[in-house]
């Protein structure tokens, strides 16, 4: 299993599993459902007793998910290529504009070196590609103690906090 980091710690036994739209059988108890699922059946499953999340893939947009945010425990963005930076902006919108407080997870092709920016954009969970990369990601946690801009975590840009 690929290592999951959440809030700066390695998490054992992550219960969440992706449930593909075409799959047979019952939902897993903690189901990450693709966007198409939410678009077609969102109104029916929104009151389900299961713990539900969403998976967004390259090309998906968040708009259709917005009505279901209160039901969503996790929104997971799958990175097909690490250089595709769209999810950074989606995460920022989810946190700052839509006040989403559930987990925002990154998985797929992400680099340990991206974790800091992802975190600042609103992600709080990261599935790294290997144990070694997870360790690197944890070790890189304190690289920067200064930031100029506001972000999803720190709403005040440096110019409002600067003491000179």
């Amino acid at each position: 299993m690929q290592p999951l980091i959440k809030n700066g710690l390695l998490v054992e036994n992550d219960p969440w599993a992706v449930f593909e739209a075409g799959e047979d059988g019952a939902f897993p108890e903690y189901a990450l459902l693709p966007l198409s699922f939410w678009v077609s059946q969102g109104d029916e499953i929104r009151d389900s007793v299961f713990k539900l999340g969403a998976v967004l893939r390259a090309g998906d947009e968040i708009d259709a998910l917005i009505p279901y945010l209160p039901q969503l425990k996790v929104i997971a963005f799958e990175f097909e290529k690490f250089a595709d930076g769209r999810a950074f902006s989606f995460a920022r919108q989810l946190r700052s504009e839509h006040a989403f407080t559930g987990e925002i997870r990154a998985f797929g092709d992400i680099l340990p070196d991206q974790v800091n920016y992802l975190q600042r954009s609103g992600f709080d969970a990261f599935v790294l590609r290997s144990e070694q990369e997870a360790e690197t990601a944890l070790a890189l946690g304190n690289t920067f103690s200064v930031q100029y801009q506001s972000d999803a975590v720190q709403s005040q840009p440096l110019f409002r906090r600067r003491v000179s």
Partner: protein
Amino acid sequence: MYVYDSYDQQLVDQRVAQFREQTDRFLDGELAPEEFLPLRLQNGLYIQRHAPMLRIAVPYGLMSSTQLRRIASISRDYDKGYVHFTTRQNIQLNWPALEDVPDILGELAEVQMHAIQTSGNCIRNTTTDQFAGIIADEIEDPRPWCEIIRQWSTLHPEFAFLPRKFKIAVNAATATDRAAIRFHDIGLQLVKNEEGETGFQVFVGGGLGRTPLPGQEIRSFLPTEDLLSYLDAILRVYNLKGRRDNKYKARIKILVKAMGIDAFRELVEAEWLKYKDGDDKLTSAEIDRVKGHFSAPAYEALNDQADLLAQQRFEDPQFDKWLSRNVEAHKQPGYAAITVSLKKPGYAPGDATAEQIDIIADLADEYSFGELRVSHQQNVILSDVRQQDLYSLYQKLTALGLAEPTVGTLNDVICCPGGDYCALANAKSIPIAEAVQTRFDDLDYLYDLGDIDLNISGCMNACGHHHIGNIGILGVDKKGEEFYQVSLGGDSGIQGKVGKILGPSFKADQIPDVIGKVLDTYVEQRHDDELFLDTVHRIGLDPFKERVYAASH
């Protein structure tokens, strides 16, 4: 100029430590080359034809003599003792070793410099007029705004993996645009509205490369305190909607063109309204803090020295030439700004040796309050020289080969490194610049021709801005042979025009003749004091075509 406080310093120091660790991991094989790529690019490091190339940021072209001396020593210690000044007010080292780059960045950080985001698909160095703050024709000094943008864009977490690179330029002059803002992803023009308040006219979607397009107005007036939230909104829309399937269609210009400016504006304004009155609204305390760093140097109360200069010009005709071409009027009485020309025929345009750089730094200390600017025409500016000192400064520059009195003329060529250095080139560009400079070395002829921008790029990436040269030359490859396409009528200024292609391309050795015929046509057809550019636009390309192609067949 802006001086780092402990926050700014800490950030660049930590950035160096971060890159050192990343380089170690790459050298240990833990980071694959394609994974190291965006990390090194965002620290200015390309891998080039002969060696890596390191692009060092000179924020909005301004630097101190201390910083320039450090560049000289770095080029000596880690490179071959010369550097290249680029068309985006940056400095490039052409031969550093990869393993040395963390140390080089460490040395830069010691003098408040860095290479952050000088390449890669992120927000690049913000550029402006090289005469910012010293010319009379200016709404206000644009440099504090550039610094505010620098801080906002530096390590912006959301915009480090954009579809493509992103460049912002600011202009504050009303009658000129030396920053070519219409050819940037975002161009900001400082303006005053009817109430007399200062704001920005915002252009978006300009760029060169394969698809040259002037930016379009997205907002006629943006209050200055809303600058950062508005930039965030444009970048967010671009980050989400820009194409990622084809890198040649990934710049914001393609998105704006495809959507149309009105639809694009609607998205941006909708996004902006959500954040506009939040914490990113600039405070007057912050604006004043940054402006405080750009206060005027300790000018002496002097008068303009018209008589003295007239006398010196009369006695030394060479000085007269230099004064007319390389000296710019200053708003402070008794002062002038001078351009140190890096365009000596026989030397690559924009190149300077470590020795020259050290001496330029000394001259800046002696004559210009220890500050210098880098221009996008690839020259260096001493911006605050006493008029009474011009003659002695001129003599020193002459001795160094840095007083070529050709600023703004045909011989002040803008030229990319081309096939001699660049892996992407279709053709060499530096030898073309030299051939033209050698052919047209008669100063009286050059002066008679007046202002002409000649821009040369070695391929359609357009690093030499050939599209917006009054005369543009582009290297093209035809079945493995180097050819050159010539265009006329480009304009980097307020009008912002892309040049039109004259016709079939030429071989390298034909270029001086072709340029000669273009110039002859101009001289014959021009009205009195008409500039080359204006003649081209008045008479169109046909007379030039007839002349150039008639004789060559």
